[in-house]
Each structure stands twice: as C-alpha cells, then as structure tokens.
C-alpha cells in the first residue's frame, strides 16, 4: 500500500503498478485499460507518492510477477548492483534532480545504465516535464557501429524507409534513389515487406544489398520480416546485415509477436557469428502493444514500453526505434499525447543505454497533423535522438500512415546543426550531393547517381 497526503487529501494506492499507472500523464491507452487516475489532482497525488519512493523499491517489488514473466526475471536477474551504487540512496524524486544536476555527465550516465531497471526510469519520467526529458536524455550518448557509426554527438541519422504496397522492386528502388539523393539512409535502408514470406524477403534483401554494393554506400540494409523468417534466410545464405524484430515489455505480449527471449538469444548468436564485433540487431517498440494483445498485467503502457528496452539491451542493438504514433488514437489520442510519449521513450531508452531512434508518426484517425510531427521531431532532434525515419514525402503508401520525410530530416539537420553519420557524410560528398557548406543539395533530379541506378532499376 502506498500513501500520499496532498493538499489535505489522503490518497491510497493499493500496489506499485496502480501507483505508477495513476501517476502517468494522461493518455487514452491507460484510460482504455481502466488504469488512469480518475482526476487530475489524484494523478498529481500519485506523482507525489511516487517521488518519495526509494529507487530500491523497484528491486524488491515487481510490477509483473517474477514467476509469471520472463521479462521480469531478465530485469531482476541481470541488474548490476555495483553500477547502481552511486544512486542507490535516492528516491524517484531525488533521482530526477540528480539527472538534471551537473553530476549527471555523459560518462556518469554510461556507467550508471546497467544499474538502472526500466521501472526506475519509467517512474522518473512520470515526474518529468518535456524539458526535463530532453535535458537528461541529451546527456546520454549511445554510439553503435555497423558499416557506419550512429549516435555520435552532433549527428542525426535516418532510416530510409522505401516501402511499397506490392513490394515492387522498381518502386522500392525509386524511393531508395530519392532518399539517397536527399542524404537519407545512414542508420539503415530498411523495408517493411507487405507480405512476410521467405521468398519475398530474400528478393528484397538481395535488391537492397545489390544497391548498397553497387553504389558502395557505407550503410546497412534490413528487411523488417519476422525474426524466424530472417533466421531461416541466414541459413539459406541470404545477404542479411541486421536482424529485425518487434518486441514488447511482457512475456505474453512477446508471445503475441511470436517470440521468446530464447528465440532472440538464438537470433543474436547467429547474427553475431556472421558479423562479429558489430551491433547487428534492430528492434522496434511502441507504447500500447501489450494492451492491444491483452498482455499488460494491469501495468500502464509507458512502464511496459520501458520494459521492452530491457529486452532490447541484452542484444547490443544497432538501432532501437519507438514507433510512437502508429498504434492509433485509442492508445495515444492526439499530438499532445504522442509528443509526450515520444520524449518519454527516448529518455527511458537512452538512460537504459540504448541507441534510440523514433518514428515520429501519426495515423489519419488520430488528432494530429504535420504541425504535431514537426514539433516532436524538433524536440527529439534537440534532445539528441540517434535517428529518425525518412519516408518519401512523409507518406508511407504501404503502411498507410504519416512519418517523417527526407526533407524533414534535412530541415532538422540544418536548423540544429546536425550532420549525418561521418562515413555516410563522406560518401555524400564523393557523390557530389553536398554544397560547399556541407548541406545536402543534389544538383537537380537523379543526376549523378542515375546511370548506375538506371541499370539497377532495369535489373530489378
């Protein structure tokens, strides 16, 4: 039982999960689950109670039972007590202040990350304003490497997302060309296949690999098929750079994605054997996935999202992408809720030591538009996000939602003085796509790349 007396009113919260849910800034998914505080004052009372909670409480009280859930067991069993020692004495409220203090340097945060568990950072985020989420996250740096180096200070990378509703190779190649000319694709060139079949996935992997090799692009490619499909194709010799999988914060929600931790262990072992020493996993997450599969255990969606990051960090991923507005208005209703969720996810992921990116996005039944996407993109870029999406004209014609465009990423790079990954930036220069100030300014049409690309398109 957790209690707070706020403004003369006494509030009781029967469990840690209830306390965290009621302390969560309002969002539709928690209302749908029946977990949200029933008044704004009660929400703040829960935040007061949460602020006074010692961080050690999260090491002794699990929001999802240890016996019932392998993600809880993973979190508890892999906790690094020595790394946690510097903040062990703090409450949640005290930890928020520590994160904003001058003591929380980049080096201190990197050393602390293995000592933090998802529930600690989720609880802390619930007390934070957007500004706090940005300031703290901007100090955490997580740098990962495959062919390019992602997450260095002053850099903003993009995943080039050239989806096509029929997986048409020429259609995909045309979108890749547009993206490359606009400086997109240094995080990866990654296609969501319309159909998750091994044959289709192999064809797309081969196409992307051929484009990358022909144009000698210092990046990595990915087809976002199910992990079992990718593992099968690795055995058959398909050109696999990265293993992709959607993940969630409970064992039952992961079962809904058709995965277990042992399956991810197996995939990680296989890709590590293929690419020793490199970061070669790519995970996607998003608040609400556990509730949507009926696997939330009465825990709020933001805490469960942070628990998905505990799954991700076991596997030294190259990229972790929170697809923040994709799930729809019953989980994140409007631009305000999507904005907050995106910054929470970036904060929690970075503090836990993950290379966070975000798909700043919305569906047409959410109360959001391009202005909301612009705002969240700018806030995330200012907070030091590793990568964002690059979709032609921000319109994904396969998945039917709006993301961020090649142009959006360029605008943010220029507004905030961010540059692409260094290897990719050098390649852009060699292709004649940068002006004297280092800005991406392709010299009109598919000019320089077109000869080599035309032959690729003809072959596709």
């Amino acid at each position, binding site marked *: 039982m957790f209690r707070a007396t706020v403004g003369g009113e006494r509030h009781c919260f029967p469990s840690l999960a209830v306390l965290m849910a009621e302390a969560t800034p309002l969002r*539709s998914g928690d*209302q*749908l689950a029946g977990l949200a505080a029933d008044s704004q004052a009660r929400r703040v009372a829960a935040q007061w109670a949460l602020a006074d909670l010692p961080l050690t409480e999260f090491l002794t009280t699990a929001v999802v039972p240890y016996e019932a859930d392998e993600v809880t067991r993973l979190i508890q069993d892999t906790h690094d007590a020595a790394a946690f020692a510097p903040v062990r004495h703090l409450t949640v409220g005290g930890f928020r202040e520590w994160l904003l203090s001058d003591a929380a340097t980049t080096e201190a945060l990197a050393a602390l990350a293995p000592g933090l568990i998802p529930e600690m950072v989720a609880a802390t985020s619930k007390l934070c304003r957007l500004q706090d989420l940005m300031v703290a996250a901007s100090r955490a740096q997580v740098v990962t490497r495959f062919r390019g180096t992602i997450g260095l200070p002053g850099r903003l990378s993009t995943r080039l997302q*050239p*989806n*096509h*509703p029929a997986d*048409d190779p*020429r*259609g*995909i*190649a*045309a*979108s890749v*060309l*547009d993206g490359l000319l606009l400086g997109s694709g240094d995080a990866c060139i990654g296609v969501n296949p319309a159909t998750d079949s091994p044959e289709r996935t192999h064809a797309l992997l081969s196409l992307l690999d051929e484009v990358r090799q022909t144009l000698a692009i210092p990046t990595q490619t990915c087809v976002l098929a199910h992990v079992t499909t990718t593992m099968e194709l690795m055995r058959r010799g398909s050109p696999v750079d990265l293993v992709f999988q959607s993940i969630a914060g409970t064992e039952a929600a992961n079962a809904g994605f058709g995965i277990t931790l042992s399956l991810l262990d197996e995939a990680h072992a296989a890709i590590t054997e293929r690419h020793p020493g490199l970061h070669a996993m790519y995970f996607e997450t998003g608040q609400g996935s556990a509730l949507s599969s009926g696997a939330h255990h009465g825990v709020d969606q933001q805490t469960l999202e942070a628990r998905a990051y505990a799954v991700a960090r076991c596997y030294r991923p190259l990229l972790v992408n929170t697809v923040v507005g994709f799930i729809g*208005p*019953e989980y994140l*209703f409007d631009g305000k809720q999507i904005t907050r969720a995106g910054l929470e996810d970036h904060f929690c992921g970075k503090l836990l030591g993950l290379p966070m990116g975000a798909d700043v996005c919305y*569906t*047409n*039944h959410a109360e959001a*538009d*391009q202005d909301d996407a612009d705002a969240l993109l700018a806030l995330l870029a200012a907070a030091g996000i590793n990568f964002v999406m690059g979709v*032609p*004209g*921000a*319109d994904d*014609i396969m998945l*039917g939602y*709006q993301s961020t*465009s090649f*142009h959006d990423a*360029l*605008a943010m*790079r*220029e507004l905030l003085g961010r540059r692409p990954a260094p290897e990719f930036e050098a390649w852009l220069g060699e292709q004649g796509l940068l002006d004297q100030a280092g*800005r*991406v300014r392709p010299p*009109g*049409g*598919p*000019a320089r790349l*077109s000869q080599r690309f035309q032959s690729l*398109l003809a072959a596709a």
Partner: protein
Amino acid sequence: MTDPAWTPLRAFTAARIGLGRSGASLGTAPLLEFRLAHARARDAVHHDLGAVPALEALGLPVVTVRSRAADRRTFLLRPDLGRALDDDAGPALAPHAGAHGLAVVVADGLSALAVERHAAPVLAALLPALRAGGWALAPLVVARQARVALGDAVARTLGAAAALVLIGERPGLSAPDSLGAYLTWAPAAGTTDADRNCVSNIRPDGLGYQEAAWKLAFLLDRMRAMGGSGVQLKDESDRAAALPDSVRQL
C-alpha cells in the same frame, strides 16, 4: 518546381518521390497536395453515415442499428464500445431472427464515405451470386459507429451461420474511401481477427466491384464448404480452377 527527370520513376510507385524543393524544404505545391490528402482523410474519418437509398433498393429488408459508442470521439477512443450493440439493437433485430445462412452488415467503421460510395455497388454485384448459390440471406443490417466485431453480435442475434461485414477502412492519404470486407463463419463472443478473412481496398481505383464480388462469393462458398474461416481458409480465388456455378456467373 517538380523535376521532370522523376517522371519515368513515378511509373513504379505512388510514393511521393522527386518532390519540388526549396533549400531543404518542400515546395508550396507538394506541401499543399499533402495537406489536401490529409484533410480529405480527416473529413472521411469524421463524416457521419447518411441515408444510403441504394442499399434500400437491393431487395432485402434493411434494419438500422448502432454500437454502444455514442459519438465519433467515443468510437475512436473506445474500440470495445464500437464492437457492442446498443440496447435498442436487440429489439430491432429480434423480429428478423431465423435460420439464416448469412448476415450482411454494412458498417461505417473509419470511413462512412467508403460505405456510402461502394457498399451498394458491391452488394448489387454479389447478391445475385449468393442467391444463386443457395444462401439464405438475413435482412441487411446498417450499423453506425461500428467496428468489425459488431457483425458477430448481429449475426448471433439474427441466428445467422456466418457474417459478412462491409466496413469503411482507415483512410489513407491515397484514398479516403477504401471499403473492406470481413467474412466470419460461426461468429461467437470469443471470435478474433485470426478467425476472419478479409478482402480490402475495395473501390473503383483499387479492387473493383466485380472483382471484389467474385472474391467474396468464392470465399463464402469455400467457407461454407469447409465450415470455417480465418487462417485455414486461403484466398485462392485468383487461381481457382473448379469454381462453383454461383461464382462462375460473375
């Protein structure tokens, strides 16, 4: 200004490639084109389903019901309410209960526009095949603020062995009026999406009316023959060799 060098590549994809640019930013025309597409999609989401006289002209009795979602905002926030019939629906449907083979439900879903434009033409193409195939059809049910699973409750109340739900799909930027069709055999309280078959993107510029009717008649016939729907029922209509007469007519 949009670069003509992109014209040949646009034949390969509807993606917004080669957009006119000023500095790093979009030109004014592509900016407003995107905004118009989004505005149309938003208007479609919030459009209320009006009277559809063409549905009345199909030769079936028509019953109108609502879900428990009282308005559009509630519908968007509470999918569970959009799947449940409101209190007036039971008495409205009860007089029509009987040993029906198929209940056809026309539901607004996320685009009433799709329903207003495409539901009647698809049914006009489909119903003759169903009658020829010996389907005992329940009255046509028009459902407002309705999700797919509302069709399960309708079919159970009417006593129908199967449900066909024609529903407005979530509008995309490319089309605000795409109609989806969901087939469910023996719909029950615990029925999930894995138990259904779906035919999507029905509209003149997507899957045309005749082609959609063909697919639906094929799937309904197979569903009845195997006594089940969902993952076990594959859409092989494109390469079906032995088609039943009722389907071949189409």
